[in-house]
C-alpha cells in the first residue's frame, strides 16, 4: 500500500540544516495496522505529512497504492489525498463553524458527489462511530472523545484505503483512547490500512506491527524479532 525507498527530508534555514528523515525505507502492506513510536522530533509527523502527500521530500521514491507519487502536481496529489487517504489528528481539527454532519461532509464535497450519495455516506460513517444522534451538534458541544470520533467518521466517510492517524489519542483519557483504538481496529478490519503515530506503547501493542523512529530513521521492531511475520502482514523497513 505504501512503499518509501530512501526518502530524505531536510529542513533548511539560513544557518541550519535539519535532516528530518534520513533516507528512510518503509513498506506498509495493504490491510496492515502499523504503529509508529518515537520521541518528539524523531520525524514521525514529517513521515506522516509525506505519506499523506502534504509535504514534499528531497530524495528517494514514494509509491502509494502502486502509483509513484514522488513528484505530483497539486491537483493530482489533492485528488489522491481525497480519494485514498483519511487523516485523524491529535487535536481533532474539526471546523468549528460546521456541525457534525457538515464536518464529515467536507471530504465528500471535494469529490463532487451528489447530495443523496453524500448524505448516505455521512449517515453510515456517523453510525459506525456511534454519533448519529449528534449530527446537528457543533464541535464545541461535544466531548473530546466525541470530537475525535467525528474526526474518524470524517476520515473514513470517503472509504479511503489508508488512514493516517497522528497521535489520535494524545488529547484523550485512557478510556476514550481505548474507544478510539477500538474504532481504528474496526476500520482496519474492513480492509483499510492504518498507520498510527503514538507515544503510548500500550496502544501501540494493539497494532499488528510496530516501528520506531529515532533521529529521522526507522527501526522496525517486528523485523528485529526472531520469528517471521505472519503472511499478509509481512513488511520490511530499513534506515
Amino acid at each position, binding site marked *: 500500500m505504501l512503499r518509501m525507498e530512501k526518502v530524505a527530508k531536510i529542513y533548511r534555514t539560513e544557518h541550519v540544516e535539519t535532516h528530518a528523515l534520513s533516507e528512510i525505507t518503509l513498506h506498509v502492506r495493504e490491510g496492515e495496522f502499523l504503529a509508529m513510536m518515537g520521541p518528539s522530533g524523531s520525524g514521525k*509527523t514529517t513521515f506522516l*505529512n509525506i505519506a*499523506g502527500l*502534504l*509535504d514534499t521530500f528531497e530524495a528517494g521514491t514514494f509509491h502509494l497504492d502502486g502509483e509513484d507519487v514522488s513528484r505530483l502536481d*497539486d*491537483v493530482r496529489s*489533492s*485528488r489522491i*489525498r*481525497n*480519494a485514498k487517504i483519511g*487523516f485523524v*489528528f*491529535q*487535536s481533532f*481539527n474539526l*471546523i468549528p*463553524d*460546521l456541525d457534525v454532519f457538515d464536518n464529515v461532509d*467536507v*471530504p465528500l*464535497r*471535494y*469529490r*463532487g458527489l451528489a447530495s443523496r450519495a453524500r448524505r448516505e455516506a455521512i449517515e453510515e460513517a456517523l453510525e459506525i462511530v456511534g454519533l448519529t444522534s449528534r449530527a446537528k451538534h457543533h464541535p464545541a458541544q461535544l466531548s473530546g472523545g466525541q470530537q475525535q470520533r467525528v474526526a474518524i467518521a*470524517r476520515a473514513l466517510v*470517503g472509504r479511503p484505503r489508508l488512514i493516517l492517524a*497522528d497521535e489520535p489519542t494524545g488529547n484523550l483519557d485512557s478510556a476514550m483512547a481505548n474507544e478510539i483504538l477500538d474504532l481504528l481496529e474496526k476500520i482496519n478490519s474492513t480492509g483499510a490500512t492504518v498507520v498510527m503515530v503514538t507515544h503510548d506503547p500500550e496502544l501501540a501493542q494493539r497494532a499488528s506491527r510496530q516501528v520506531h523512529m529515532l533521529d529521522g530513521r526507522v527501526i522496525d521492531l517486528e523485523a528485529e524479532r526472531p520469528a517471521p511475520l505472519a503472511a499478509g502482514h509481512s513488511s520490511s523497513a530499513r534506515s
Partner: protein
Amino acid sequence: MFAYQLRLAWKSLRRNPGLSILSVVGIGLGIGVATTFVTTYYMLSGNPIPQKSDKLFYVQLDSWSPERSYDRDHPDLPPDQVTYRDMAEIMKSKIPTHAGGMFKADLTVHPAGDGQKPFRQLVRMCFADFFPMFDVPFQFGSGWDARADAGPEAVIVLDDEINRKLFGGENSVGRTLLIEDREFRIVGVLAPWKPLPKFYDVTNDPFDAPEGIFMPFNFVRPMEINTAGNTSNWGDGSGDGFEGFLQSETVWIQMWAQLEDEEQVQTYRAFLDAYVNEQKKLGRFPRPINNRLSPVMTMLKDQGAAPEEAVGVLIIAILFLVVCSVNLIGVLLGKFLARAPEVGVRRALGASRRWVFVQHLVECELIAVLGAVLGLGLAALGLELLNRMFEAQFAFRLDLPMVGAGVLLALVSGLVAGIYPAYRICRIAPAMYLKTQ
C-alpha cells in the same frame, strides 16, 4: 460546488460580523461614491435622445468673416449659430421631416392669480416642429401647429414646473397668461423633461434647465424680442435698430433639422449648398462653402458639451474606489491568514490550491456584492442630494445600465482586493497547521 462555496463564504462573514461589516462598508463607500459620479458623467456625456439622435442634425452655415475663422482654435468649424435671415430662408425647405430655428428669450410673465408678482422667465422661441422633432413629452394638451407659426397665433406651452408654479399643477390648457403686453393661450403642458445635456441649445451652459415657456418663434418681430443667449457678429455689427439686427450677419439662432436617411441628408445638404451659392452671388458668405449637418452626438462633441469637471470628479471617484479596494486587501489578508489552520485541514481532506483560491475569491465577491447593494443605495442618496442641490438643472437617476455598472465595479473591486489574499492563503503549507491547532 459554487453553492457550497457561497455557503462557506456566508458562514465566514457571519463568523466575524465586525470585520465583515467593516469590509462591506469599506467597499460600499467606494462603490457609492464611484457609482454616483460614474452616473453623473454618464448622464452628462451620454446620448440625451438615443431613440433618434442619428436623425437630428444641427445646421451650421459658414457666413463668417473672410478675415478670420469663427473659432480660432478650430478654424475648420463654422459659426455655431445662424443668422435670422438664413434661418428664415432655409426654413422654407420642405426636405426635412421637421425643422426649426430657435433661441431663448428673457420675458416678463404677469400671473393672473392674486398675490403673484410679475417675474422674469426664460422662454424658448421655437417653431411647431420643436415638439415632435425632439419627442417632447406632454402631460396636458399638445404643441401648436404650423398655422400658429405662420400667424403667429398667441399660444404657448408651459413646462411642468411653471405650470405648478402658476396653476398648482392642474390642467391649464385653455387658460391664458400675460407675457410682456400680450395675452397667450396655453395649448399644452409638458411632462417633466430635463434632457441632459440640453442638447438643442448648448451655446450657453449645456447643463442649464430647459426654458419654462415655449412660444411661436415669429413673435420675435412684432414683439421685438431680443435673444437672451449668445450673439456673435462681424462686419457691420448688429445693425441699426431691431430690424437691422434681424438683417445683420449676427449669428444667434440654433437651427435643427430631422432627416430620416442618408438620401434625405444629401438632398438637404445640396439644398444648403445651393442656398449659400445663391447668397454668394449677392455678396454674402465670403468664405469657402462649409455647411455642416451634425448629428446630435457629433454636435455635442464639437461643442465640447461634456464638462471637464465631470471627468476630473470621475477620476477622483475611481481613485477613491481603488483606495477602498487596497484597504480591503489588508483586511482580507489578515482575515484569510487567520484561517490558515482550517485551510490546512481542508487541504488535507482533498481541497486543491485552486479550490481554496476560488473559495476565498467567492468570499471576496460576496463582500463585493453586499458592498454593491450598500453602495448603490448610497449612490441613489448621493444622486438625490445632487438633484436637490441643482434642482433646476439636473435629474440624475440610477438607471439599469448604471446599476449594472455599479455591480460590475463592485465585482472588479472585490476581485482586485481578493486576488492577493486568496493567493497567499492557497499557498500555505498545510502540514504546518495540522499539528498546532
